């Protein structure tokens, strides 16, 4: 029988802690695949966040480090400046990157640190139980916006790719999704492209991934994927936001 799929070699034999239908599981697997296919397992250093993505270090079979909440870009900066030939990427959620860690993300981008940020945007604080995130949509009901987010009270959702695009230090910013097979393949390509930009030291790169959180959205996994397509992507348009020649 022909083998069509195998566990990536750089993914440890561990059970994911992610909830059923969670996009993190796909992103985690894609990262292991890309690092393996680009033969970067011996060079990769992953900075894990606080949040649902924090346990990626239990899954990746390459060097990993836990960062304090939001400080991934600063920690990655310290690593990359000392070891410029390593592949350094930070895995971060929306609260981590766009709320508590906005300053670190913004200034690492502005300095053009040749690091990659894998930004998982699911519009909610997952690990703490579904509070409003900086990327929650208007009218989205969360445990801390029980009447739905309003622009007057909570402000508009933060579009980090567009925010960082104005900075001259950024070289590649793309928004993708993991809600259907074609989108997942695009996400994989975007991650690889971000790593290529890093290896060629063109500047700071980030891949923003719209990712389902059925548990906190209180939807079935299938409905969550449809919601990304019909609602979330309308607010967060998919595609390359910025790319300089690599």
């Amino acid at each position, binding site marked *: 029988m022909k083998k069509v799929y195998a566990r990536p070699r750089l993914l440890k034999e561990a059970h994911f802690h992610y909830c059923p239908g969670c996009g993190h599981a796909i992103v985690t697997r894609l990262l292991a695949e890309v690092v393996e296919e680009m033969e970067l397992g011996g060079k990769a250093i992953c900075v894990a966040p606080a949040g649902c993505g924090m346990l990626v270090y239990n899954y990746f079979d390459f060097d990993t480090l*836990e960062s304090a909440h939001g400080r991934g870009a600063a*920690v990655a900066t*310290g690593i990359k400046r*000392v070891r410029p030939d390593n*592949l350094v990427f930070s895995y971060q959620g929306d609260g981590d990157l766009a709320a508590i860690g906005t300053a670190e993300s913004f200034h690492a981008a502005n300095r053009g640190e040749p690091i990659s940020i894998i930004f998982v945007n699911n519009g909610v604080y997952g690990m703490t139980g579904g509070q409003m995130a900086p990327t929650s949509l208007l009218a989205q009901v969360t445990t801390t916006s029980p009447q739905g987010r309003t622009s007057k009270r909570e402000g508009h959702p933060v579009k980090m790719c567009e925010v960082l695009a104005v900075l001259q230090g950024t070289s590649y910013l793309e928004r993708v999704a993991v809600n259907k097979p074609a989108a997942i393949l695009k996400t994989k390509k975007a991650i690889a492209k971000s790593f290529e930009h890093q290896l060629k030291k063109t500047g700071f790169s980030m891949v923003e991934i719209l990712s389902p959180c059925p548990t906190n959205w209180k939807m079935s996994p299938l409905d969550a994927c449809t919601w990304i397509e019909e609602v979330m992507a309308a607010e967060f348009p998919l595609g390359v936001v910025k790319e300089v020649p690599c």
Partner: protein
Amino acid sequence: MKKLMNGNSACAEAAVLSGCTCYFGYPITPQNELGEYMAKRLSEVPGGVFIQSESEIAAINMVLGASVVGARAMTSSSSPGISLKQEGISYLAADELPAVIVNMSRGGPGMGNISPAQSDYFQATRGGGHGDYRTIVLAPSSVQEIADLMPLAFDLADHYRNPVVVLSDGMLGQMMEPVSFDGIKRGKDYVKDYILTGADGRPSRMIRSLLFDVKEEEEHNWKLFRKFQRMEQNEVRFETLLTEDADMIVVAYGTGARIARGAIKRLRQEQLKVGLIRPITLWPFPKKAIQQAAAQVSDFFVFEMNTGQMVEDVRLALQGRGRVHFYGRPGGVIPTPVELFRIISRHYYQSVRGKKE
């Protein structure tokens, strides 16, 4: 050869001579000369990294990143900035990563002012951030001693894989004194088998402090505790002055100890038998030295440029076996040796002479 230098610049030069290749910091008075010196000096060092970070929080996390890949890294700041670094210091301690943090402290709390004070003693000696941890705290008393302590700070950080704090103040940071760098050099190389370099030809490594299993977390805490106990056994440093015949012993550190020296000189001229114990490590605190002194002396006079912080450690060391006198000036006031001489002599006459007569 001696150079006339301020404490901030001397600290930076000594750090570089000690093998520090990475400095991350954010401007704050009264320690700006340190970062400015590093900006220039580290550009001459192979692999030297200097970043003026966007915040103190970013700076300490850059230190963590540089440390995790094996570099000798440091940051410096002054009191309000050190508060911001506490998150990162807690992570460094939890992850067992070396780093050196210099605090040229100033008057507080809050914004305080930019004058020298010793009001960060509690923060420095009790860990400072969240969780059950300690940092070794070195307290220099001159520009030369700032320089002398830097190789030790980096060695202790590497030896114990723990953050080390150099607690000085704006007085020593700003003051110029002749300083020699002749004896200041990098100590031995430490084998760093824990650092992240990429899992090339070896199993992958993971550095983290999150331990959901409470038994694992408890054991991690005890493991750190045992390390702190080793520090308490092996790393206590202090200096004594005229304690042999003393009836009263002054306990003071850093700038406070320099003022105390001047006061003691005058007290001795007046035939008042007063000596000095100067802790060089504020943590671990030289409690045995104080306990041993209590065998012959019953009066201890604690002088600090704050409202009374180290005085608690003196009381804890004595366990009620001596009388503890205290004089403090918080808020950035620098008392003169004459002022301190007057206060100490009053206490001396009331307590020591009163007892003798």
